[in-house]
């Protein structure tokens, strides 16, 4: 029943990314079975003797009062990770053949991840919005109000033109100094090998990399009634396309591209997940959580 609320077309009717994320995540979490493999943070782990240089905020003052020894209280929460989402806001993400644009779908996804990470898992979360260059950067943090900063960044992520996918990635290294989970949300309109070659360096610091390949159903299986003049949303170029070509050659080519991305990502140790914007978000969240669980 709740699955219905995860449908993208339903989510498009909800104003406010926070509410969307809450609807998605709460609906998603309520449907999960309890699992012993993971528990949420704030669970006590151990005490450790204070040593010089430790942060006094972590000293358990109750123990000190009783024992007059300074111990630091350590939680499992300290093993929480940093989630950084790289959101592609290029012009091609503005495409839609239905009620939800790819960029909106990506926003819902990101908002859900942030909500899940911050409210449910106490992870630090950050975002980099990019097209040809880095348009917005919110560093990963667990500070109060981070979710709203992230949602604000998502709100401002409007699709703009882009000609080169690889160009902004060379700058990402300087922002991703700590290891964590890096989620790339894009439509990956670039050669598969180049995509993998571009994103692979993000793993060098030990981060886990997850590629969410967001595509519209029309991009996967286009259906044309007659010859159409297609205009490239990024370059502005135009091309007349016959329905026969769209039905045969194009589908083969996009299928080969997806398969190449999946294979090359797997070979590079990168998680890859294809998202159809007509499908609910739960599959994507499940993929994220499984990756997150592996990090714990």
């Amino acid at each position, binding site marked *: 029943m709740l699955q219905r609320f995860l449908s993208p077309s339903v989510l498009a009717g909800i104003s406010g990314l926070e509410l969307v994320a809450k609807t998605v995540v709460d609906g998603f979490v309520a449907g999960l079975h309890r699992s012993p493999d993971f528990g949420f943070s704030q669970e006590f782990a151990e005490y450790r003797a204070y040593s010089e240089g430790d942060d006094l905020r972590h000293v358990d003052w109750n123990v000190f009062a009783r024992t007059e020894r300074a111990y630091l209280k350590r939680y499992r929460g300290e093993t929480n990770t940093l989630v950084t989402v790289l959101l592609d806001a290029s012009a*091609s*993400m*503005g*495409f839609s053949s239905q009620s939800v644009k*790819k960029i909106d779908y990506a926003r819902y996804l990101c908002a859900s991840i942030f909500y899940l990470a911050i409210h449910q898992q106490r992870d630090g979360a950050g975002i980099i919005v990019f097209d040809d260059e880095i348009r917005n950067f919110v560093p990963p943090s667990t500070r109060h109000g981070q979710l709203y900063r992230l949602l604000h960044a998502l709100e401002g992520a409007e699709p703009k033109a882009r000609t080169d996918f690889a160009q902004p990635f060379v700058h990402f290294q300087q922002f991703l100094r700590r290891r964590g989970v890096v989620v790339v949300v894009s*439509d990956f*309109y*670039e050669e598969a090998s180049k995509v993998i070659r571009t994103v692979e360096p993000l793993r060098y610091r030990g981060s886990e990399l997850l590629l969410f390949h967001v595509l*519209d159903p029309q*991009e996967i299986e286009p259906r044309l009634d*007659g*010859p*159409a*003049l*297609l*205009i*490239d*949303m*990024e*370059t502005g*170029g*135009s*091309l*007349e*396309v*016959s329905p026969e*070509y769209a039905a045969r*050659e*194009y589908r083969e*080519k*996009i299928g080969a*591209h997806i398969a190449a991305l999946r294979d090359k990502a797997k070979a590079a140790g990168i998680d890859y997940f294809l998202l159809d914007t007509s499908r609910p978000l739960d599959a994507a969240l499940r993929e994220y959580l499984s990756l997150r669980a592996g990090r714990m």
Partner: protein
Amino acid sequence: MGFLSPWFLAGLAALALPVYIHLLRQHRAQPKPFSSLMFFERRLQSSVRRRRLRYLLLFALRALLVALLALAFANPYIKKPAAAAGAESRLTVIAVDDSFSMRVSGRLEKAKSEAQAVIAGLPPGALAQVVSFGSAVKVLTQPVADRAELEAAVAAIEPSDSRTSYAELARALRALGASAKRPLDVHLISDMQRSGLPASFAELELPEGARMKAHPVAAKRVENWAVESVSAPHRVYDPSKVRVQAVLAGFGTPASRRRASLVVNGRVIESREVEIPASGRAAVEFSRLELPHGWGRAEVRLEPSDALPEDDRYRIAVERLEPRRLLFVEEAGRERAALYFKTALEAASGAAFGIDTASPGQLGNVALGRYAAVVLSDAGSLPEGFVKELREYVRSGGGLLIAAATAAAARAALPVAEGRVTAVRYASREAERFLSAGAVDTAHPVLARVNRLEGVKFFQTAVLEMKGGRVLARLADQSPLLVEQTLGAGRILVFASALDNISNDFPLRASFVPFVEQAANYLAGLSEAPSAYVVDTFYELRGTSDPVSTMEVFDPERRRVLSLAESAKARNIQLASQGFYEIRRANGRVDLAAVNADRRESDLDPLPADAVSLWQNTGQGAVSGGAQAGSVRWSLWWYVMLGVALASLAESVVSARYLGKEKLS
């Protein structure tokens, strides 16, 4: 295959319309934004070749319809080689010249024997037709294969007095070719007179595919003298004052001395020896024209005779009349107007009119019947009985000229005429010093030679208020100056001024003489007719307003020209032969018309050979020769139009079917 109007083939460009409708318009790709085109390949997409024509059958029908329409306007034809079928497919036309010049001794006989030879040489079963031509073409037979009929038609050809017109022959041949729908073989048997050529050589164009063979019956130029023209009055009142002038011409002649005689009713009146220069002209004048009263048949005769004696005589018809009487009425003691009028009349018409003057008081015993016309020169009060008698006189066909000035203004109304003088204007008393004539109807016989009354100054004019009638002249202020009215069969002219030199200076002007002469002739019913006519001109028997009456016309051979029905209705006759025509009217009057052959026929100079050759080449068959000779155009227009009708019908059916489908879908 060819096209009569090939420029209409440009309409084939309209084929772009169905192509646009079916190919471009139907398949114009709608622009759609797409995320990326990296998986589309240009070489396979952007090409009209990839576009498919929808409704191929409908497109084909529409394209066919447009193409057929363009073809129909271009009027296509094919050439059918008519000559291939042999002589049966051609029509032989034997054209024999019977013009006046063929009267030269032996020419017509030679022409007829040539025609008989042509008929004898016709292949069996060949169609032939005999025509004779002068100024008009007479078709003597239908296209027949019967040689006896053709030979009889040739034998029946008689010489005429008309002039040669090759243009008329060519026009008739074109008509024959069009009606026979087959190419012509024309045998032209003529003396090939140069003077028969039209002004424009284009008028000689033979019908398409026609071949012409000339059979000249006069090999060389023949010397010929002729009386070219005679100038003499049609009516004579005093024979002692008449001069007859004649022009004598020589065509291809050496300088010679000839005798010219004036003959009246068969009697030689006067003869003169005339030196005629080589191929030149000389004038001769006869000072006497002794005529008995009535019509005289006169002629100027040239002797000795030559090869064409018929043009050595030039006939003129002259009528000797007693001078007509005019009654000139004016106030006693004011004889100035009568003096000017009489002097002008005597100066102009050679004693055609004698004038009796009378004052209003002397009119009691005047018998109006003996006068050709009456002039009321600003007469004041007239006896009541005279006015009544004058009205009857006009109604029965008499003429009346009223000069209205000061005296007429005193009367309540003009006598006889419908109108009155409302006032008399004295220009010198007013701002203008004088008035001049404005609009003048120079087409009217009375005003034909008055030079628009230029320079005439009118000092006193009557302001006329006429009921009906036609204004022939106006003053510069648009008030009527000369008005014509009719009463019964008679004519009334009202002149808004006096005929003396006080009210105006008209009598002192040169235009006064022709005005008086023409007014007198017009009112007396004397028309100006020529003393001689040329053959083939038309003679007017009656005007449109003349009462219906029968008349008889006799030609020079004393044969009746008009049938019974024509004698009551015919308005004119064509004078077909030279001689004297006699016209007898119902009222007993007899007119005589002298008719002479056109003197262009007297020049017997033949056409040069190259001109004949050029004429022969105007038929396409003669030009091309060989295989194309005698090809005829066969128009395909009807077939194309049939195709247009069928294509439009099919297009309607097919498009209705497709449209039905589209609506359902």
